[in-house]
């Protein structure tokens, strides 16, 4: 007879949002759309990440990053935002902390800005509409490096 020990339990999978020491990765979400910010936050918290801050434009995002530093592991950065766009905010964050891990969130058709962001130090990018699997894969990839 098979006992339940013969089957791997999917429930014992470690959430992706945890570091090897069991504490969660800390994420700052910068997006001017309440909907997108909520969507990213839901995807991340469901995998055990800790969303430690949200900001609605680039300027706020930069300020939040400085406040949180060094207790922040990753930033998701929208590109098109009022006050300060995501590319400028990225550059200022990298000036402040050259090891910052920033992932750009872009609408389709912003290839030039995405390219500039990657050249400016962004670690990866995700194109909207956001797909749960894609978001988690890209983020995990950046954090595993």
């Amino acid at each position, binding site marked *: 007879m098979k006992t339940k020990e013969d089957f791997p339990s999917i429930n014992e999978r470690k959430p992706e949002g945890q570091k090897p020491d069991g504490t969660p990765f800390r994420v700052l979400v910068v997006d001017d759309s309440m909907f997108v910010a909520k969507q990213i936050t839901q995807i991340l918290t469901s995998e055990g990440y800790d969303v430690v801050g949200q900001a609605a434009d680039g300027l706020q995002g930069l300020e939040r990053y400085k406040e949180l530093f060094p207790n922040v592991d990753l930033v998701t950065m929208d590109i098109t935002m009022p006050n300060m766009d995501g590319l400028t905010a990225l550059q200022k964050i990298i000036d402040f902390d050259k090891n910052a891990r920033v992932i750009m969130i872009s609408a389709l058709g*912003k290839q030039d800005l995405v390219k500039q962001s990657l050249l400016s130090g962004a670690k990866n990018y995700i194109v909207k509409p956001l797909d749960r699997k894609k978001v988690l894969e890209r983020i995990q990839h950046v954090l595993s490096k």
Partner: protein
Amino acid sequence: MRVEYINPFVEAAFNVMKEVLGGDVRRGELYLKSTSMPVMGVAAIVGLAGGVEGRVLFDMDKASALSIASAMNGEDLTVMDDLVKATITELANMITAQAVTKLHELGFQFDLTPPAIFTGDNMEVSNQDVEALIVPMETGHGKVEINVAIRERA
């Protein structure tokens, strides 16, 4: 107005709505309006300016907007609040971005305004000197009309 302008919007609306809403999306018959026309209650508008100019309107009734926003957020939303508006705005954003990428590939050059959202009863939209092409799209969450009025710059 040339039909080339509307097809990318219809294709993009089809792709994006299918992806974010799931289920079936059906395209209705295209029609043309040259005078003022009623708006159903919730309208997201994106302006275009450059080599071509005009605007794209995503028009739906309130019940459809709530149902679409509920599906996109994975929760039951019953009032037209900021989250519902942000969600419909983002839907318009994603559709327009995909359509514009296609139009840029076809050689049309122009910039977009960020989407604005209008809500209210008995609204009407009028276009001076440019007729609007409208494609109704049926989703499992109600009807969305893609209303495009674009012309080449004089």
